[in-house]
């Protein structure tokens, strides 16, 4: 593991990037370890640095704003660039003094930075220079101008008074609303589709209605490192184990410990089980959206044994509570192994039959083929992740690019399609189910012996002492919906900053190119085709403002606000 202020020269590409950033752009390395290097650059160089990295094959994972005033009287913005093909991350830090809090916007050169920049502005109050469109993304319209929830002086349970809403960006025309409550959207989000006749010409999106303040809560005295996995698990109702594992991987990196091999295998097995049930759920929902409810019912019938299996292994159908820093809480014994094998055989057989049927139904093929197309270059520009990327010919999979846990031990294919339409996204997920089944079987065969918990950790020992303050860590996991990223900056006994970037956060901006030019009737399927998970995407607000009650509710200023709790 690298030391502060030194980078590891073993990786030649990494040292080339480090050399370029330090020599040509005046940066300096602040921290590094095996697959991460943290470089601070002067803020006026940020745009050039971002351009250089993005054009040399890096994807933008996300950016994270941190209020570092208690440490060094400035705000900081960390851009996490993932060099997928090389398997390491370059984290570019820029600082802005507290009395002159701005950073240059990189949206022109890195379109994928759109959302996270706006989030930095909302949550930490960093102004963006050189950006044409500045609007609120996360905070509701009636939130006071000068309160930024992730600043350190704002208490985690603070509830500001509601102020009169203004300054919201709106498209000039009125479109067709989808949401905040709509049968296709299983969570409240709002899309407005501008149409010409039957054709969608533009999309306006307003989300973040279900923000729960999880990141802020993680920094509050209410939580410790030991409790955070349980909190992280509640970020998402479907890929909860992904989030808890990802948060734990970041903490373990910061602590410099590696869980025993057996624990890594068990985590991987459960992660793949989660992918199976998530994809089966999605295939069912897609059938339902297309009006093929028989397909929906049968897919969920096939899925049910996987849920029961999850409960047997972990103790719960969802929110497994299996993970702790340093290992897992439950072992997989002989009896459970047999049951897993038996269930997987059955699911494989039944789903094969069902999937063959589903993709051959002519109505489904006709609705899915050629609709919601996302081209490869659009996918690349927006750094989309997961099945959405792989259906557009973009070979991205964290399991292959940054092998973590036990994925090196299993051989598996990454399904890739180039059509970029809804059918391709269906097929990618269907194939991934079978790959996941094969991964679990391989891992069960190879399951090594030994303990399931690191010797320094247990439920009783507080792990706080193992994780020193002032460390950084980035962890990424291939969730069923794509790459999930957790950025951690450690503090005293709890995170100083914990940034969660769920896959849907990266994929929603891609809906705009997908929906444009398509018939209106295909919009619901296309929206569903990214497998949106809104509670993951909206994770970080500290609100309980009840608004829009006294006012007349209009489409724009009330309709969006009323579903907020």
């Amino acid at each position, binding site marked *: 593991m690298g030391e502060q202020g030194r980078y590891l020269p073993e990786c030649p590409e990494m040292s080339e990037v480090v050399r370029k950033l330090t020599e040509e752009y005046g940066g300096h390395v602040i921290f590094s370890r095996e697959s991460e290097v943290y470089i601070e650059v002067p803020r006026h160089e940020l745009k050039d640095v971002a351009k250089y990295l993005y054009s040399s094959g890096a994807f933008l994972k996300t950016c994270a704003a941190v209020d570092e005033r208690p440490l060094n009287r400035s705000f900081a913005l960390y851009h996490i660039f993932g060099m997928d093909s090389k398997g390491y991350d370059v984290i570019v830090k820029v600082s802005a003094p507290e009395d002159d809090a701005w950073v240059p916007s990189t949206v022109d050169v890195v379109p994928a930075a759109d959302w996270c920049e706006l989030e930095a502005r909302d949550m930490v109050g960093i102004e963006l220079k050189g950006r044409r469109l500045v609007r609120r993304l996360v905070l509701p319209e009636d939130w006071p101008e000068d309160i930024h929830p992730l600043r350190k002086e704002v208490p985690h349970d603070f509830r500001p008074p509601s102020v009169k809403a203004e300054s919201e960006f709106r498209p000039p025309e009125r479109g067709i609303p989808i949401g905040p409550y709509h049968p296709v959207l299983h969570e409240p989000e709002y899309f407005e589709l501008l149409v010409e006749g039957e054709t969608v010409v533009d999309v306006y999106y307003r989300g973040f209605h279900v923000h729960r303040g999880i990141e802020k809560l993680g920094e509050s005295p209410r939580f410790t490192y030991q409790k955070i996995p349980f909190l992280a698990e*509640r970020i998402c109702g479907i890929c909860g184990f992904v989030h808890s594992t990802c948060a734990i991987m970041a903490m373990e990196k910061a602590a410099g410990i590696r869980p025993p091999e057996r624990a890594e295998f068990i985590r991987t097995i459960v992660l793949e089980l989660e992918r199976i049930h998530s994809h089966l759920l999605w295939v069912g929902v897609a059938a339902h959206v297309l009006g093929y409810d*028989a397909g929906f019912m049968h897919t969920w019938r096939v899925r*049910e044994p996987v849920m029961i299996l999850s*409960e*047997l*292994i972990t103790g719960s159908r969802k929110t497994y509570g299996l993970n702790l820093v340093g290992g897992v809480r439950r072992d997989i014994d002989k009896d459970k192994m047999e049951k897993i094998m038996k269930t997987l055989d059955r699911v494989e057989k039944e789903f094969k039959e069902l999937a063959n*049927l589903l993709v*051959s139904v002519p109505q489904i093929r006709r609705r899915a083929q050629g609709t919601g197309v996302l081209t490869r270059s659009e996918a690349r520009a927006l750094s989309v992740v997961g099945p959405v990327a792989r259906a557009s010919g973009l070979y991205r999979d964290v399991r292959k690019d940054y092998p973590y846990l036990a994925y090196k031990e299993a051989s598996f294919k990454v399904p890739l399609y180039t059509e970029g339409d809804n059918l391709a996204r269906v097929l990618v997920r269907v194939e991934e189910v079978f790959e996941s089944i094969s991964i679990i079987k391989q891992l069960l065969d190879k399951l090594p012996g030994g303990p399931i918990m690191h010797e320094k950790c247990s439920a*009783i020992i507080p792990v706080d002492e193992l994780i020193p303050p002032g460390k950084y860590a980035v962890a990424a996991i291939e969730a069923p919906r794509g790459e999930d990223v957790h950025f951690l900056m450690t503090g005293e006994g709890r995170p100083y900053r914990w940034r969660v970037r769920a896959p849907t956060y990266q994929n929603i901006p891609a809906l705009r190119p997908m929906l444009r030019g398509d018939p209106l009737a295909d919009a619901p399927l296309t929206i569903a085709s990214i497998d949106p998970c809104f509670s993951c995407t909206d994770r970080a607000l500290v609100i309980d403002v009840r608004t829009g009650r006294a006012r007349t509710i209009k489409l724009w200023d009330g309709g969006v606000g009323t579903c907020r709790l």
Partner: protein
Amino acid sequence: MSIMKLLSIAAKAKVVTRRYPFEPPVVTEGFRGKIEVDPKLCWGCGVCTRICPPNALTLKKREDGTLVLSYFMGRCIFCGMCAEVCPRGAITVTKEFELASLTAEDLVRDVKHDVVRCRICGRVIGPTVEIREATKSVGGAEAKYYDLCPECRKLVVARGIMTKVGVRP
């Protein structure tokens, strides 16, 4: 064509919906439901309240001088961490999950503990059982100070030493 395939799949699957609640629910042996605290084993030390992620377990001081370990199922996430850390093995995880009730009080389980008060200043030192058992394991000269709070204990011990060496306290 595809309709025939679907029919054959449906015929094979038959009816899968269970007649719950008229037949027992499917709960595997790994399932974690609500917890039960054994009042006979619990000492009231409060380790479980510190590990509990959602603060479903709390240790409260009542006005009447008792200490109450309160379990509120409405907040519980059924992770079972409390059972793992309990030094007395007083907490068991059951398979019970049908907890719905019309009143919130039904979701609370309290374990009451009497407390030892300092015999000099009257301050609450801790739960009686915990103090008694701890005193047993310490034994010897320490045992006679079991009902003194740390401050009063310091004073008493200091006075004892001063009297022994002949200094007037």
